[in-house]
């Protein structure tokens, strides 16, 4: 069975920006291990002659032409923003 450490779960949680309780941490640790073990099973198949698949839709080459369409307009664009000023979204300061 695939090993998933507590740190692995914390790392994945951080990448997804979710906060986990102690109980959830334990629960997900075992659930993730189970999922990985299930996926491991696929390795039993020989994929030597199989092309990597990038889409399940069976379509290809769907394009649009480079023609402008009306945008939303600023008020509508900003309507759902948790925080905004006159013309922009506002987010916690980003400093590097």
């Amino acid at each position, binding site marked *: 069975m695939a090993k998933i450490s507590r740190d692995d779960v914390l790392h994945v949680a951080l*990448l997804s*920006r979710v906060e986990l309780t102690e109980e959830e941490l334990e629960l997900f640790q075992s659930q993730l291990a189970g999922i990985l073990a299930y996926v491991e099973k696929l390795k039993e198949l020989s994929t030597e002659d199989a092309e*990597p*698949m*990038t*889409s399940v*839709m069976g*379509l*290809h*080459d*769907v*394009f*649009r*032409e*480079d*023609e*402008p*369409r*009306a*945008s*939303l*307009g*600023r008020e509508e*664009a*900003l309507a759902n923003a948790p*925080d905004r*000023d006159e*013309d*922009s*979204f*506002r*987010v*916690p*300061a*980003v*400093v*590097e």
Partner: protein
Amino acid sequence: MTDYEVVIGLELHAQLATRTKLFCGCSTAFGAPPNSQTCPVCLGMPGVLPMLNRAAFDHVVRTALALHCRIDPETAMDRKNYYYPDLPKNYQISQNARPIGVDGWFDMESGGSIKRVRILNVHLEEDAGKLIHPEDTGAATSRVDLNRAGTPLVEIVTGPDLRSVEEAKAYMESMRQFLVALGVSDCKMQEGSLRFEASISLRPFGQEKLGPRVEIKNVNSVRFVLGALECEIRRQTELLNRGESVPQQTVLYDVRHDETRPMRSKEHAEDYRYFPEPDLVPLHLSPERLEAIRATIPELPLARKQRFMQCLGLSSYDAGILVEDPAIAGYFEACAALHADAKAVSNLITNEVLRELKERRLTIDAFPVRPEGLADLLRRMDAGEVSKTVARDVLTEMVATGRGAGPIIEAKGLRQIGDEAVLRALVLQAMQQNPKAVSEVRAGKSKARGALVGPVMRATQGKADPGLINRLIQELLNRPSSGE
């Protein structure tokens, strides 16, 4: 200081020359009020579906072909996952597993010779929005403008092939010219449509293994990239000289202090959790389609420059200036087709036409003097009708009024004075008035000649043929009794 070999790789992002964004019909025009060019697709609203812009895709295929890449006949978009406030979807649609082009090369001129730089990867991706940081560093919020979000970009990654800051500079400039000539990007640095990131390592000369790679972020102009590279060379050289090792890391360039410092947090490549973008379908490139796109590749700047030098006899310097802007090069060719002396055409364009364009902030397409008009002026210069100096004024007048050279020369009485008798009298007068200059010229001080030419030019308001004046001075000097 130069005990180590410098190894630099560059990654560039150029905004593709499209009217609309990569996945929606929002305009990409620069300078619109913040957040006015957005829609549910580029705002990352739930349930929307992206549709790929064909022009953007074709531009990247054209770029990959022109860079001699191997083209994947079936390419696809991938999803790169990360969180940042300028990325409304919380992922960027890019290419990872099947980029459009790999393993190409780019020839550039550096230090007078041709250098081949390997191109590892050419792919299509979307840009993020723009974060506007507060002026005062204590402020609690940053602002986000999503006009840029979803703008189509081409990313081009070189191998670790550049060996000096000068080569990095040559690459950045040559690449800019290449992309503009190819028509895939306007490469306006000040509008953020061309950006570079660099990675650099040092190694002892003769060592094959590359040193630990330091990536430099936050450099948004060529000058800053070069400044940051100089900084890193100093910093890494010091570390190595002290016997320490250089940690592999990402650094930010602090322009104000001209120093690089390690970036605190950085997600690693494996943290991006790339996977095939489920909202888009694979893209096929048939041999016919590839050939059709290949046929749209124009002559590129380096080849054009070499042709100007070899076929038209221009100097490397002049040819280089002309090919910097494909429209200027085209104007030059149109003029050279009408006037046989290509060097004279090139001189007039690189000296006078470019100056007029700069002073009047015009592009060559809007320049009122068309190739026929310029060729006409050149013919009149050749025929001795106007001197070089006067030709300059005539050109200025042509630009200002839109009139041809002929009427301007007539109306202003600018015709060059080539009448030997008139000039001989003036030269003689100048020599009589300045015996000191005469004896200095006789003594071999050719600089003193100016004191004799000057008065003649003044007397004729610059219209005298300078070649003729010089010949007359020589003639009169050779006559032993003259001037005394």
